[in-house]
């Protein structure tokens, strides 16, 4: 197994880097999109709540793999061409944003209406109250579940392998099919994933207990 790693370390590292890069991009964008829809969902306006609900239900109830395939194979046929990495990352972002939105929404709701009313009666607008009072508290509450979402996101980034996204899993497939050492290759791939996910999920357990 050691020689497998030594002979192919560049291929593994490219994959490792792409997995990290894709995860960071997807995390940042899904946080932005997810928080946006979470705010929409807690708005008094019924129409915007409905829009948010539809978005969340669609992306929460269709497999990530199907979403990624649609961005890879279907969208380019009548819109922009994109490579596997882009298609996979977009799919991952939208999929994760639905879950993040649910998490952030429960955070906002647990802060409570009283806070909002208090801030409004102090002369803040709805958006100011959201930005300076509600969201900071909400995020503090939801950090552990958000961390778990991030762990899931890293694991889910492996669907990039299906759309030739050159991530860790894809590179593993390439090495396995050229060296024919299937199991050892995937053990190495697994260790690379654990390097990313284990510390993160232990840290979240630690935060939860604190």
């Amino acid at each position, binding site marked *: 197994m050691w020689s497998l790693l030594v002979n192919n370390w560049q291929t593994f590292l490219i994959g490792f880097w792409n997995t990290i890069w894709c995860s960071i991009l997807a995390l940042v964008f899904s946080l932005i999109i997810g928080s946006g829809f979470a705010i929409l969902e807690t708005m008094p306006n019924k129409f915007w709540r409905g829009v948010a609900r539809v978005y969340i*239900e*669609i992306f*929460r*109830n*269709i*497999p*990530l*793999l*199907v979403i990624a*395939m*649609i961005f890879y*194979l*279907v969208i380019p*046929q009548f819109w922009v061409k994109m490579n596997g990495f882009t298609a996979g990352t977009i799919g991952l972002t939208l999929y994760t944003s639905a879950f993040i939105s649910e998490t952030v929404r429960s955070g906002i709701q647990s802060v409570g209406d009283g806070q909002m009313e208090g801030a409004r009666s102090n002369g803040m607008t709805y958006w100011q109250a959201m930005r300076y009072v509600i969201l900071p508290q909400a995020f503090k509450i939801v950090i552990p579940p958000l961390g778990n979402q991030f*762990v899931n996101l890293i*694991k*889910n*980034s*492996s*669907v990039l*392998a*299906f759309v030739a996204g050159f991530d860790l*899993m894809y590179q593993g497939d390439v090495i396995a099919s050229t060296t024919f050492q*299937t*199991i050892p290759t*995937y053990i190495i*791939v*697994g260790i690379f*994933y*654990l390097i990313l*996910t*284990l510390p993160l*999920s*232990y840290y979240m357990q630690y935060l*939860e207990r604190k």
Partner: protein
Amino acid sequence: MDFANAYSWINIHFLLRGLWVTIYVSLISIALSFIIGLVLGTVRYTKIPILSKVVGFVVDIIRNLPLLLIIFFTYFGLPGIGLRVNAVVASIIALVVFESCMIAEIVRSGIGAVPSGQMEGARSNGMTYMQAMFYVVMPQALLKMIPTLLSQFVSLVKDTSLATIIILPELLYRAQIVYSQDTRYMIPMYLIIAVMYFIVCFCLSMVASYLQKRFDTKTD
């Protein structure tokens, strides 16, 4: 586009049989991983010397790996130790192994969320640890866990699509077979399987949010 041709009865029938594979693989995996996850989670919470540590170690490793890797390990690895598995068995084993570890973690934190006074009270009333666990603590914990558990089950249903890689004849895989024979059917196929997955998962999600609401009003 060739929607009318793509949705011929032959193709739809072919897809529906895939939907059935998706559903029964999911159901078997949900049942087995719920039971195993319950046991693993309880063992881990109970802090039995050595055993709990070992279970904790294995659970942590498996739930931090992508399911796709677990699928590869079962499909390519099990025959190496003398067990020939077909795609259906391999998928079920992989899903059960992965999901029971995810559920074990939910169960552990669910039991942890039950106030410790409950356990102490039951013990002081003369119950053994096991009795207190099963009659007093576990029912309360389970009630709290229901929403999280159900959304985990929804994830499981969606995750069956990953088994296309080892040629499990489920929904996504069958859609790919249909459009590989006529590429004009690609868009209609993705459209219809997205709808089919959505219906199945949405129904499960609805059950989850219904139970959550019922549970919330009960405790208030």
